[in-house]
């Protein structure tokens, strides 16, 4: 197993700085009395791995980037790489991740937030299994376990081969500088492969094999069987929408917006201007799926589908798709819209029909940011 600790992750949170990206903010946070969280949290995770300590080969980075956590838990470990202690940067995280990948670790654990997840996404390819220990200020990404303890249990189960399923989880990041100005601009940055404990089916009377994957297949069939000839289909990012294009034999831009017409890919990874051009004089539909664990339908990760485009397509022509597992993960929280235009947000709010499978729908609430 590889372990990377971002020693400055979470620094900005308790002192109200909305994030910890960049050396200046980190210094400011420390001046404001911020106490690093990541060492303690990483150690909590390692404690849970003690049952396999004799078999565990732990690779980590020096000093505060993992070595200290391993020592605190008295776990045998191998330190690789080098850093300038007290002055670590995103480049250290990325280099560590690349080296872990080269070592072909079974699982890469990292303690950090969205920024750390983003750095790791950039550094590695999708052959590496990764799991985030929640440590950061912003954790919009779906790659984190719910707590350090559950990260430890999940890592243990994965390393022991008790969990064999994986899922592709969204890596989101928000522009911190903009956030400090009160503007939320979240981007869907990419996907990481994480171990997926389908705890939900353990001991269940309904044994299921990859229920989410099956649901995506059936959603894709439902959409394709009911596709019309005339309209353009603007297909938002996500693995659920990717399944639709895969069924059509088309390549989907995972974190971008594609346009399909008559079962063919008309344009890939389009921006707002290109979309407006394509829409000229044509009827259209939008296919979207909520992004990340937050339930955002518009305004996070799919800003290309702008208020202007949404209005032009029309509310009745928005097709929302989501697997039951994704719906359940929202725990009753509504879908959210944050398009940047309050009027559009209000107009979109209310109820929507969601395609959850073949001939299976839900009626689900949409709220706009700032409502309630």
């Amino acid at each position, binding site marked *: 197993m590889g372990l990377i600790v971002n020693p400055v992750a979470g620094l900005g949170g308790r002192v109200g700085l909305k994030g910890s990206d960049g050396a200046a903010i980190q210094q400011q946070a420390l001046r404001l009395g911020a106490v690093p969280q990541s060492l303690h949290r990483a150690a909590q995770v390692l404690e*849970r791995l003690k049952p396999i300590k004799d078999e565990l080969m732990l690779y980590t980075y020096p000093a505060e980037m993992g070595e200290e956590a391993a020592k605190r838990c008295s776990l045998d470990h191998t330190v690789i790489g080098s850093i300038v202690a007290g002055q670590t940067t995103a480049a250290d995280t990325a280099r560590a991740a690349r080296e872990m990948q080269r070592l072909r670790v079974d699982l890469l654990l990292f303690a950090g937030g969205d920024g750390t997840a983003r750095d790791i996404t950039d550094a590695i390819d999708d052959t590496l299994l990764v799991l985030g220990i929640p440590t950061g200020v912003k954790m919009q990404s779906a790659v984190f376990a719910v707590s350090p303890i559950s990260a430890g249990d999940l890592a243990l189960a994965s390393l022991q081969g008790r969990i064999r399923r994986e899922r592709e989880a969204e890596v989101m990041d928000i522009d911190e500088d903009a956030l400090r100005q009160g503007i939320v601009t979240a981007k869907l940055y990419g996907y990481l492969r994480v171990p997926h404990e389908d705890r939900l089916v353990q001991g*269940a009377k309904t044994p299921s094999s990859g229920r989410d994957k099956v649901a995506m297949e059936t959603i894709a069939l439902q959409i394709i069987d009911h596709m019309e000839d005339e309209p353009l289909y603007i297909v938002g990012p996500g693995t659920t929408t990717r399944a639709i294009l895969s069924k059509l034999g088309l390549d989907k831009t995972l974190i971008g917006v594609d346009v399909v017409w008559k079962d063919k890919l008309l344009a890939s990874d389009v921006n707002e201007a290109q979309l407006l051009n394509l829409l000229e004089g044509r009827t259209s539909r939008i296919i979207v799926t909520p992004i990340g664990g937050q339930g955002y339908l518009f305004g996070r990760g799919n800003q290309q589908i702008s208020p202007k485009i949404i209005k032009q397509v029309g509310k009745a022509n928005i097709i929302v798709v989501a697997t039951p597992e994704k719906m359940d993960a929202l725990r009753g929280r509504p879908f959210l819209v944050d398009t940047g235009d309050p009027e559009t947000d209000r107009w979109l709010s209310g109820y929507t029909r969601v395609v959850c499978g073949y001939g*299976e729908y839900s009626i689900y609430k949409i709220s706009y940011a700032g409502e309630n």
Partner: protein
Amino acid sequence: MQNITEKRYTDGRPNLRRFHQAKWDEPIIFELSNPGERGILPPAVEDGIRDAVGNVASALPDMLRRKTPLDLPEMAQPQVVRHYMRLSQENLGLDLNIDIGQGTCTMKYSPKINEQLARTPQITELHPLQPEETVQGILEIMYKFEQILKEISGLDRFSLQLGAGSAAIYAAASIIRAYHAARGDTGQRDEIITTIFSHPSDAACAKTAGFNVITLYPDDDGYPDLNALKEAVSERTAGLMTANPEDTGIFNPRIAKFVDVVHKAGGLCFYDQANANGVLGITRAREAGFDLCHFNLHKTFSTPHGCGGPGAGALGVIEALSPFLPTPLVAYAGNRYYLDHNRPQSIGKVRAFYGVVPAVLKAYAWVMSLGAEGLKEVSKTAVLNNNYLLKKMLEIPGVSAPYAKGKRRIEQVRYSWEKLCKETGVHSEEIGLRAADFGVHYWTSHHPFIVPEPCTLEPTESFSKADLDEYVEILKHVAHEAYTDSDRVKTAPHNSTVHRTDQAPFDDPSQWAITWRAYLKKTERDKKG
């Protein structure tokens, strides 16, 4: 003389029961087979009889005669008895434990006298092909039980042919389809609406019956969302299939409005009464305006569940829908009971013959022993038990009861150990396994999987205050362990025969077989490669 009773309590609270499950490394019965061994050796047929009767087997048509002998284990009686006695000891069944952890299943005591009745020769020797005039007694019981169900529900006609709750729900969906078809509406009305916390069979049966299914999520207060329903209905609406109370134990106070919205859209309304145990004699399908409803005799009416049963369902409808009920129905002609097969609009048979007759008999006996007031008392006690348990459960650190916060529940509650899990890493499933060390259990399988770390408890009228206190005391103890010695819980059970099973192979059909025959087929196939 020592006071032995006092020793069972500490500070007025019951001590936890010390329990250890029996462990037998018992082979599968087919592995115990010893060729040639027999349980009973009947004497040879006497010459005179053989001469008179001839070869009995030759009287059977060739097509009905077995070409190869039946593949049964060959064993003597004592081996068979030992085998099953051992298996029975490896159980944690209803008659052994305080079985309130099997929430949504309405585990209640099945009086033994009713079991005895069902085992009398008058029942066991009946044959479904007997002429009607020779089975007037059981037809009378079925007819009279139907009258009772009509009174309990307010609906007009019942079929007792259903072999299970889901069979009744499937038949209800089929009747909804037949009704719209009869009005020439089939193609258009293809959507059934249900709620996410309704009995999952509602969505499943509607889907199996060919409908598209629309699921509603709760509103902000945790109740079924009326506005979402208004969004859902259209000219495509065939019907609403919903439970009340839902599987969270929350009663939908606006149920009559739900029914009204669906009726105005031209749909029918089916009341899934799998959770009827808290509302007998208190609310009825009729008053809420429902067109169809069903009961699970093996839940609410005390006939044991499938594994100790078999189960049985009862499906009721309003007069306008009675032509569609399964055929035949039991009817009364003033001087005799008969089976009415002349039902041209019926959805047909949903099960061979007339239903699970022993279950109907047990349910009838149970109701007759209670009377109308007794039935109401059943519900009042079940609700009281549940709300007492709710209060005690919420005193345990780490437990919550999501949705409709602060409101009372009907007959069950879906709790969550989310807080405890976040703080200790102990999952609901592990709490259930640790509870088994004290001779009780609960299960965590609760579709849909929205409530995190769920635990559904349903303390029916069968359990005393002492039972409830003992159960809570066990969970309290386990929760305390989770916070102080979580490994103890995470490695549980410690007193059971099988500690942990690896559930991952369930996803791989090459690693499991549900019958001996399937096992042989699969291993045979493997050998062939």
